[in-house]
């Protein structure tokens, strides 16, 4: 199957999947008890209005509902919502009726994307050499230390690590690295490190495993037998194949990193997508909630597609299907 046809098929599948997810998300949030109006955030000012002038309050609510199409039948609402989302017409959030969600995304999304991509790139750069070292020094103290550290990195989620780093650089040795905010290069250090520890662990373990596997292959022995220097055997013959296998790990790793940015942003008060979600979900701000997970999921699924195409490009044994 040609690349174009493969891509076309996958894109159609992606759009259908996203549409189903959006519809289910909308229906579930619609079914959720309580509405944006009953939640405590907006209750104070509007609650007063309701007591003082019930008629005006009713009008306000009606206006609000017709503005967001909440007075239409459920199926129509859902279809409309899915269609508007798929065409990137997100409208405005409940909390902020004057600012289009697109505007909020424009400032929040790049931050999360930088964090996620930065972390994955950094983890690959650190994880591959560590994995190679562990594989070459197999069954030594160095290998077992690296393997144990990898497990530890995978075990502790990014947000707990972030908290521990805030304690370290906020209480124990203040002033070394900024522990809060976003805007300078320094402020990106701790979040990216917190996001990367687990990824480095995953990549190190995977690289170690696949390299050990490849080093057992006969073509490696052939290369050694014909007198290729050890360094070249590893870099040119063995690593090239184990790197191809590594591409398959990048997809899930990226997906998990995108979710982790949401958590880490909350710890370091970074105004990214996690910040939007933290504001939207507890108040049942339906458009902003669904749009933020939609955009992040789109990034994850797009990355999965790229990874699939790359994997098939690098490994001719795998047919496009």
């Amino acid at each position, binding site marked *: 199957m040609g690349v174009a046809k493969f891509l076309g098929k996958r894109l159609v599948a992606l759009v259908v999947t996203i549409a189903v*997810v959006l519809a*289910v998300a909308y229906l579930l949030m619609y079914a959720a008890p309580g509405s944006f109006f009953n939640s405590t955030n907006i209750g104070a000012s509007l609650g007063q209005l309701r007591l003082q002038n019930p008629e005006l309050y009713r009008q306000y609510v009606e206006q609000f509902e017709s503005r967001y199409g909440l007075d239409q039948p459920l199926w129509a609402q859902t279809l409309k919502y899915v269609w508007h989302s798929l065409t990137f017409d997100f409208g405005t959030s409940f909390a902020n009726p004057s600012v289009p969600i697109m505007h909020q995304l424009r400032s929040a999304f790049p931050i999360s994307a930088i964090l996620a991509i930065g972390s994955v790139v950094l983890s690959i750069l650190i994880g591959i050499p560590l994995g190679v070292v562990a594989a070459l020094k197999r069954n030594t103290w160095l290998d077992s230390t690296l393997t144990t550290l990898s497990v*530890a990195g995978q075990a502790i989620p990014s947000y*707990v690590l972030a908290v521990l780093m805030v304690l370290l650089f*906020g209480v124990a040795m203040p002033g070394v690295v900024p522990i809060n905010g976003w805007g300078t290069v320094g402020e990106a250090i701790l979040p990216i490190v917190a996001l990367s520890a687990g990824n480095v662990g995953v990549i190190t373990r*995977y690289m170690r495993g696949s390299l050990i596997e490849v080093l057992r292959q006969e073509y490696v022995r052939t290369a050694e037998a014909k007198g290729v220097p050890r360094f070249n055997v590893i870099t040119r013959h063995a690593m090239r194949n184990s790197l191809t296998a590594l591409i398959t790990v990048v997809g899930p790793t990226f997906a998990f990193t995108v*979710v982790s940015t*949401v958590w880490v942003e909350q710890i370091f008060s970074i105004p990214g997508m996690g910040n939007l979600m933290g504001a939207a*979900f507890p108040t049942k701000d339906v458009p902003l909630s669904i749009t933020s997970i939609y955009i992040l999921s789109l990034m994850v699924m797009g990355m999965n597609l790229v990874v699939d195409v790359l994997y098939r490009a690098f490994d001719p044994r795998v047919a496009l299907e």
Partner: protein
Amino acid sequence: MAVTELALGVVGDESSFRRTSQAQLAWRRYRRNWLPVAGGVWVLIFVLAGIFGPWVAPHHYTDTDFLNANQGPSWEFPMGTDGLGHDMFSQILWSIRNALEIAVGATAVSFVIGCVLGLWAGLRGGLADQAIMRVVDFMFAFPSYFLNLILVVTLGRGMFPILIAIGITGWASYARLIRGLVLNMRNGEMVEAARSLGATWPHIARRYLLPNVLSSMLVALAFGIPADLVIMAALSLVGLGLLPPLPSFGNLIAQAGPNVLGYPWLLYFPAGIFALTLLSFLFVADGLQEAFDPKGGS
């Protein structure tokens, strides 16, 4: 002659010898490293704290003591108090109980759903298999945390709703595992060999299938519980954790955020204990995996 006797001796001893040997071998491999053993000890302490914590806790989790708010660790408050005068030690003990209830419950829900769908896919095959595996692929590719968020909004923020919200999204890996085991059993060489030796199905199920399945499932569950602990605490970070005043590690970590520099003990203890617990669970899971499957794994 001696060789025959030796062989006979082994055969005669086989049934009693072999029955214990798999578990014993696994245990021997498990305790070879100190990390899984240490992790196991901590997990045991954690579980005991979860079971008996509410009786040990000096205060109820709703007890406040405004005169002693924001106190550092002392004999009266071993882990300090927060801004409302909650005793952090008691808060943590109750958090452990809530964390255990939800993580174990959610894992059980995922496991049951995974078993049913995995068995269905593996045994029926055909269209059912394809449809279920499609959904499994989706669950693997899609960040399920986002589904958790939507489900928590829909179901609510109590103990049981959160348990269900986490459990209902986590079944994909169990379904894939069980389907793989079923297919392996149906077409595998081990079963064919046993069949050709004249073994009956009950015998095959008891002696060959069950031990294999049990160890794989134990390892999967050991990885599943800490993963659910992580998700549960992460819900608090976007404000969808257990509804206060119910304490949880996520709530403790999320609430402490802005005050961290003035009152660092509000984070030292919850974050430290939570991190130690997750580490221990993973070392145990890793140790189990290696103990049961010495050749495979990483």
